[in-house]
């Protein structure tokens, strides 16, 4: 992965550099107008958040059942990214809603479940930070529950009546809007991989530092 890092970095910079041109060139949505342009960052960051949550859950399960320390590092890195991308989703969404719905926030199924999922990953990080020795296992269990929430968050708009659009929007998206949307999704998924690699590297160095401290004590 370290060898691929510079290639992915250049690719990601290219994707993000060209994204504004595609977003500006994309047509205005007929009822919402300019504010709908938030869609090109809001939905890709939500996809990146779901990917981070799944990565964290799977890595935590591997850590719990196979006892691999490397998986724990990936889990921790992915949890931080789930919180980061979740924060962007939870701020960009209300900014869009204020214009489209006339309110900043609605306690509907999609918005509330997204907030709950974000709080679960915040709990994971707090547990890691202040849980003391052995908190890795406890937080790994929390991460599995956090990842299990992803399908509920995704399907919530179809199961309950919400103000949030349903999952039908993306498959029926006009071709002129689908291109920029897929472009931005690729950019954010690339960014997720880049940040994950950098964050895992930080944890690996911390593990090496712990080994050095043990060697010093011996």
């Amino acid at each position, binding site marked *: 992965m370290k060898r691929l890092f510079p290639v992915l970095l250049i690719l990601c910079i290219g994707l993000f550099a060209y994204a504004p041109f595609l977003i500006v060139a994309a047509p205005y949505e007929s009822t919402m*107008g*300019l*504010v709908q*342009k*938030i869609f090109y*960052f*809001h939905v890709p*960051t939500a996809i990146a958040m779901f990917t981070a949550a799944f990565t964290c859950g799977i890595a935590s399960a591997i850590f719990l059942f196979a006892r691999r320390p490397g998986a724990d590092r990936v889990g921790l890195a992915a949890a*931080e990214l789930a919180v*980061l991308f979740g*924060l*962007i989703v939870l*701020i*960009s969404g209300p*900014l*869009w809603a*204020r*214009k489209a719905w006339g309110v900043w926030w609605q306690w509907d199924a999609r918005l509330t479940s997204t907030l709950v999922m974000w709080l679960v990953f915040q709990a994971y990080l707090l547990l890691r930070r202040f849980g003391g020795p052995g908190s890795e296992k406890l937080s790994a269990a929390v991460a599995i529950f956090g990842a299990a929430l992803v399908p509920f968050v995704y399907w919530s708009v179809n199961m309950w009546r919400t103000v949030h659009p349903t999952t039908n929007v993306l498959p029926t998206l006009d071709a002129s809007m689908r291109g920029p949307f897929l472009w931005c999704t690729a950019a954010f998924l690339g*960014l997720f991989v880049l*940040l994950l690699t*950098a*964050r895992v*590297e*930080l944890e690996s*160095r*911390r593990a*090496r*530092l712990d080994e*050095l*401290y043990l*060697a*010093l004590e011996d």
Partner: protein
Amino acid sequence: MTLMNLARAVVVGALLLTAPAVLWARTPGARTPGAQTQSTKPPAAQEGFVPVDQLPGQEELPAAPLVAAAYGVAWGAVLIYLYSIRKRLAAVEREMTDVARRIESAGRR
């Protein structure tokens, strides 16, 4: 004096009696019988609403600052996170160098 009071009472009474009639006559569409049925007034249930495309300019929420804020928040959050990773990596590197030096000096002794 009594005659004066009587005159005043007549004037005030006349004003009180004629005022509603004058006010009613000034109301648009009140003079013509059946004017209300011919006017283009919206039904009573819609009187409190204004179509969104007829709103005065100051009542429309501008979209541009909201879009700019959303994109700004996304980039701001990512850049702050990148900065925090860089800062933490630098701190770990410094500590590793320090511990390696201490191990080396302990080995010499």
